[in-house]
């Protein structure tokens, strides 16, 4: 039996479900860690990104934070763990550091992409700055924010495999344990689940990204793309009428 088939078989073995080391339990942990990390990162990054996008001040923060992504997450996590001990805290902090730049960039880019003239007009008719943010910039910026959350989520799900290294659980358990015991089917099974989770996240956010495009903006895109179609339909209407 080849290693891939063995991995699949491992995945479907009922003995590997239930209990602290069950695949289901580890998936639950993995998702929980990822969701906690994304939530914390979003709470930090979205307001900051919005503030920078709205005021146009502090763009350098977006650039610098992009560089932070280059930090080796494993090293950072271990460094934090040496200070705060093993458990959930160190990986969560390290992954938040990883996730913030993408979300920050998405939040900022969403605001930055709004036509200046639209914002100027909103201000000129008497919207307060707060109303400009909530009624104009946030709705128009949502698609790009979702894009930022999408890449952050992908990174976090992939990297959360490291959490088990400091005893925080998740799907990394199967990778580390499999490596120690040379149980390659187990490692492979763990990897497959991580990949599936990542794909699921991509799908989810791809759908969300589409859903949050304001109807009027989508109408604009359609109008741009379908000039030809309209010309044709007018012609056929003329022909039949």
């Amino acid at each position, binding site marked *: 039996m080849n290693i891939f088939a063995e991995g699949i078989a491992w995945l479907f073995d009922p003995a590997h479900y239930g209990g602290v080391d069950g695949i289901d339990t580890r998936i639950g942990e993995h998702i929980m860690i990822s969701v906690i990390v994304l939530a914390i990162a979003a709470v930090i990054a979205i307001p900051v990104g919005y503030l920078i996008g709205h005021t146009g001040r502090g763009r350098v923060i977006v650039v610098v934070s992009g560089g932070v992504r280059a930090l080796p997450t494993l090293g950072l996590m271990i460094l934090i763990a040496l200070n705060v001990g093993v458990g959930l805290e160190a990986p969560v902090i390290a992954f938040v550091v990883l996730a913030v730049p993408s979300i920050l960039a998405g939040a900022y880019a969403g605001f930055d992409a709004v036509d200046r003239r639209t914002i*100027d*007009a909103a201000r000129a008719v008497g919207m307060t700055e707060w109303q400009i943010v909530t009624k104009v910039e946030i709705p128009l910026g949502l698609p790009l924010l979702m894009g930022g959350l999408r890449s952050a989520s992908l990174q976090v799900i992939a990297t959360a495999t490291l959490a088990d290294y400091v005893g925080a659980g998740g799907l990394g358990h199967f990778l580390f344990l499999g490596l120690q015991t040379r149980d390659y089917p187990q490692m492979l099974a763990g990897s497959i689940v991580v990949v599936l989770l990542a794909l699921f996240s991509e799908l989810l956010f791809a759908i969300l990204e589409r859903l949050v495009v304001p109807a009027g903006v989508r109408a604009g895109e359609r109008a741009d793309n379908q000039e030809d179609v309209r010309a044709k339909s007018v012609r056929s209407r003329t022909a039949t009428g």
Partner: protein
Amino acid sequence: MIEFRSVSKQYPDGTRAVDEFSLIIPSRKTTVLVGSSGCGKTTLLRMINRMVDPTSGVIEIDGKDISTIEPVHLRRDVGYVMQNSGLLPHRRVIDNVATVPILKGVPKKQAHEDALALLDTVGLDRSLADRYPAQLSGGQQQRVGVARGLAANPNILLMDEPFGAVDPIVRTDLQNETLRLQRELDKTVVFVTHDIDEAFLLGDQVIILEKGAHIAQQGSPEEILANPVSEFVANFIGADRGKRRLAVSSIAHPQGDDLVLVDAGGYAAGVIAAPGGQLATANPTPKSRSISNKTSQAGDA
């Protein structure tokens, strides 16, 4: 009444866009600020709703210094129509029109009913109410922009080259609609354009500006046309002035009681009623102005 007293504006980069500008803008009339690009028209206009604050000088509306009025509050009481319509792309036409009343606390249902009535006012079909701006033509968008500017029933309407980006035929339509609206609504309109024909067509008072918003001449279109005070003004209004002067055609024979008017280029500009060979003299102003405008269109074509 809007009064500018020795108003100057210097932008942070040092550009002195407006230099010691003084003007009285009478109520319930259309005042047109006209001048070439960069002469400071937009800056002047945006100082009226505090989108720009003067570096020095005082602007008063009905005797009240506007620097004492909170900008957001002031802007909700002053209609503003801009060149690109400035509509919110994610909101339907009706919501765009109702924006300001809703900001001012009018119940949504009421604001929507009023907005529908305003679509009638600006000559838009009510069936467009649920469309998004991107689903409208440029001319329709500008009409929605005008409707939004009127929605809070402001006494003052500021218009910054509102028809600059639409094609000439639609522009003529919109200009005539503006004349009609002004007759019906009786607002204090401050209109900015770089098009002298548009200025003469729409303005009760026309202010010709040079760089730095220096006033080259101000007066009614008739006064300015009859007596340009400087070389600059003569050039500004006169480059195609010959074209604008009409004559009764000697070649084209009158059809019934109408005479054909031609411009300097020999193009037919329109017909004028002449019962029994006598020119009709009643109601000269709006008609003769709209003819002069068409003339220039014909000359351009």
